[in-house]
């Protein structure tokens, strides 16, 4: 290949790359954590859908749970001069230098799902996250409303001890039911966010509470533990969803299956759609220069059996949960 041909080829390649951008299409780089959970996989597929809906060219870099991979991905996005960078930070610290590089290149950064250390506040445009305290409150409020004035003994399946999500979901729920003297958490134990432990712990709750007859409701910090707990209740001859109310958080497909079967009552969604609001914020910022608020809180939507759970199950099951 002569230098001339090489030059022509690279010029053409550059032109091809530049074309979509000149047509007004946004190119956004998304540094995703990796496949740590089903929810994360769903977030990735929903992000792709949302980007396609808005004709945005979304480049996703999978970091395999490593911060150094995320930093590398961000540097490569800066080199490609993307219009914006989405970052789901795997850890909260250590982002200063790479985010400063993005700032100097005038590329806005939006954090998705997780926040970083407050010292980096002016290094990103906005953060789109859920409020896990609020999720607990929504769950507690639903239970208080459903139970009404009768006395209700609640058992709680906590998430992993020491996880901030678990502490927040507990705090929110406790705040919500504190206003109602008839609601009382009688047992609370960790189920490590897993089905197997959720089942084992629920088995012990049932034995400790006289065969489960005195339990009025179960609150689980995630749906997976609730799925396990539902099995434990059924095996003990109890009727979850009817004799014992259930409320949990996350809105994974399997809880809708249980809801459709009448074995679960309510779940609070941790939406996998963090990219949607982020894309809207970036579009407004690019077109009109609207600076979004520092924190965009996603909706913690409550789903009950009244919401056609079978339909939601069908729409969610292909997302990779």
């Amino acid at each position, binding site marked *: 290949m002569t230098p001339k041909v090489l030059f022509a080829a690279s010029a053409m390649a550059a032109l091809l790359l530049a074309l979509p951008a000149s047509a007004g299409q946004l190119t956004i780089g998304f540094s995703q954590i990796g496949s740590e959970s089903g929810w994360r996989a769903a977030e990735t597929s929903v992000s792709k859908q949302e980007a396609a809906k808005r004709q945005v060219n979304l480049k996703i870099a999978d970091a395999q749970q490593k911060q150094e991979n995320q930093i590398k991905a961000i540097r490569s996005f800066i080199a490609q001069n993307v219009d914006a960078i989405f970052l789901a930070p795997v850890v909260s610290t250590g982002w200063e230098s790479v985010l400063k590089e993005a700032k100097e290149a005038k590329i806005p950064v939006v954090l998705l799902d997780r926040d970083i250390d407050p010292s980096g506040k002016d290094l990103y445009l906005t953060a789109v996250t859920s409020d896990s305290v609020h999720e607990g409150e929504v769950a507690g409020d639903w239970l208080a409303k459903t139970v009404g004035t009768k006395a209700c003994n609640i058992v709680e399946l906590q998430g992993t001890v020491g996880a901030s999500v678990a502490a927040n979901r507990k705090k929110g729920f406790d705040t919500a039911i504190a206003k109602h003297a008839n609601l009382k958490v009688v047992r609370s134990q960790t189920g490590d966010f897993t089905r197997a432990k959720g089942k084992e712990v629920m*088995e012990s709750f049932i*034995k400790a509470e006289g065969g489960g007859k005195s339990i009025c409701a179960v609150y689980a910090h995630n749906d997976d533990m609730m799925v396990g707990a539902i099995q434990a209740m059924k*095996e003990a001859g109890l009727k979850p969803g009817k004799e014992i109310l259930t409320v949990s958080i996350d809105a994974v497909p399997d809880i809708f299956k249980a809801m459709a079967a009448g074995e679960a009552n309510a779940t609070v969604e941790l939406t996998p759609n963090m990219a949607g609001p982020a894309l809207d914020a970036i579009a407004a910022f690019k077109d009109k220069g609207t600076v979004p608020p520092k924190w965009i809180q996603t909706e913690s939507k409550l789903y009950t059996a009244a919401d056609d759970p079978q339909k939601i199950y069908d729409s969610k099951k292909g997302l990779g949960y």
Partner: protein
Amino acid sequence: MTALLPRRGIAQILALIVILAVDRVVSPQFFDLRLQDGRLFGSLIDVLNRGTPVALLSLGMVLVIATRGIDLSVGAVMAICGAIAASLADSHGLPMVLAAALGAGLVCGLWNGFLVAVLGMQPIVATLILMVAGRGIAQLITEGRIVTFSSPDLVWLGNGSVLSLPVPVVIALGMLILTGAVVRGSALGLLIEATGGNARASELAGVGTRAMILSVYVWCGVCAALAGVIAAADIMGADANNAGLWLELDAILAVVIGGTSLFGGRFSLVLAVLGALIIQTMNTGILLSGYPPEFNLLVKAVVVLAVLLLQSPKFSGLAAIAAPLRRTKA
């Protein structure tokens, strides 16, 4: 072996009785049993049922440890075999599902045994490879999600009952009897102990130490596979991220509580299973107690320390010295 049990197992039986008594105190209905849908229902049954995976793991682990080895990969093997069973359950019959899952466990065991017996790697490092890689393999099989199934045959394996006892308990009991019959009904047990006691001397004496080591890792893999299938059947799904997580440590602990030395040699299958039951009796007791979950690990550590102190010859020596002293004071 049975004749030896009372003398050798006294500390373990004592520990189990004490923990059961404590459980009775924290939870007055601990010994209550009733029939629920043709199946016994109560905390004691929970102990047996929940203790099954670790009991099965400890059956394989005790043989490996008797050869002066260790197998860190059993938790990951559980995840792999559970994932295989769950993926096949709705499209294939139970015999095929079991054959595939147990076959995978056998291959995993062969791999570990090959690294240790043929290539001469240190067991702790050799099995660490599969411990790390195995969970990744399981995640590849499930594509990172929880694979659920509804095949009634496989569900029965986790939640069904035989003579009112949960199926997993019956399987574990069957495996204990089978393993016991094979290693104690022949000279195999003695040869395994010889290999662990002094591999070189045994080799010179004509023991096929390489074959011994290879076969105990294979058996350990099969036991882990069975535990993985049961764990998946229990929750009607395979959770590659969490199935069997850290259970290798519980299995090693069960073996050690059962009085088998990590330096190899003499071992006891029954006491290893008893060790697994001691761990589970404690876990169930903690769950029933209603203490905040922050205390779980602390309580567990204190109890394990107490059980091991009971067995320590130095400690019982101290107690023996202290006893007459106390008497003279009084």
